[in-house]
């Protein structure tokens, strides 16, 4: 099986009519773009629009990306901007023209979304596995969006204790991850 192509190679190939390169870009970055859109607070249907919008932006910028090697960061920043534009529109905070005008120059990577990358996710899950109970189980249940009542039943604790315990465990995990990032 051939080595996966580098991001810059994929961008160049897609710009030169190679559909398989586009499909590879989608397979590599699509799931993370979805996670960024959802993490920005969009509903599933708005997230779908935001992700599609980011791909449309890439299509129009295939030849003009400043650094094709950083296409992943470019896509994450673009989908986040689309998501924020949707949210502004929903809350009627700013005129529509800002949505289209704010899409210039998004070549810079999005540091916050690094945690959503495969390596970041592996590190995160490793840290979760290293937590003591009940934090390990609580975080695993948070990850599958289990409600406080069901969580209380699973853990055999009062419903009123779940929220504060969950907050403490998340804080502990966040501190672990941040200290790991600082050490790197």
């Amino acid at each position: 099986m051939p080595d996966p192509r580098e991001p810059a190679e994929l961008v160049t190939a897609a710009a030169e009519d190679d559909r398989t390169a586009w499909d590879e870009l989608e397979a590599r970055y699509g799931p993370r773009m979805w996670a960024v859109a959802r993490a920005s607070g969009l509903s599933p249907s708005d997230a779908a629009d935001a992700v599609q919008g980011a791909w449309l932006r890439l299509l129009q910028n295939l030849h003009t990306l400043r650094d094709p090697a950083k296409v992943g960061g470019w896509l994450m920043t673009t989908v986040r901007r689309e998501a924020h534009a949707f949210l502004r529109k929903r809350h009627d905070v700013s005129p529509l023209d800002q949505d289209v005008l704010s899409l210039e120059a998004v070549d810079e990577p999005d540091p916050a979304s690094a945690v959503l990358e495969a390596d970041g996710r592996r590190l995160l899950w490793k840290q979760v596995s290293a937590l003591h109970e009940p934090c390990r189980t609580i975080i695993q249940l948070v990850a599958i969006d289990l409600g406080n009542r069901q969580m209380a039943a699973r853990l055999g604790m009062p419903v009123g204790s779940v929220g504060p315990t969950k907050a403490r465990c998340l804080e502990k995990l966040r501190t672990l991850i941040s200290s790991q990032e600082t050490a790197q």
Partner: protein
Amino acid sequence: MINDEYFLAALRLAAGNDPIPSHVSAAARDVYGLRVPRAVTAAPAARTSAGSDVRDPDGCHLMRFVTDGLTFDLEVTVGDGLIDVAGQVWPHPGDDAVIDVKTPHLTLTRHIAHNGDFAATGLPPGWLSVVCHRPGRAPVQTRWVRIRP
């Protein structure tokens, strides 16, 4: 420090919860079919002091897109869940030029009147772009804009 929402999103992603729906992936792959080779992109520009996309009193979007030598003025109306586009391209791109009004699901081709006017009706809401094809010259395409009721 990691932002809360990203942190929770990463946990869900790591757990395989909230995966990207297959129709979203399919739509992203289909985007490639919308490519207009060699197209020059017309960027949003201020049509009035109010900006590049303003709404008139009837709720109609008034947008302007500009590139070297070609300007698109678009009036986009949303009614009954569908989009109508009335536009003008200037200076006139030539008698053989045509306009494509594109959405991810539908492209309508229109001839351009002597005064540069064109129109397309009954488009689905969502992403929209207009392309001017000029024989012997690179096509000009507006940036994609999202139109929702």
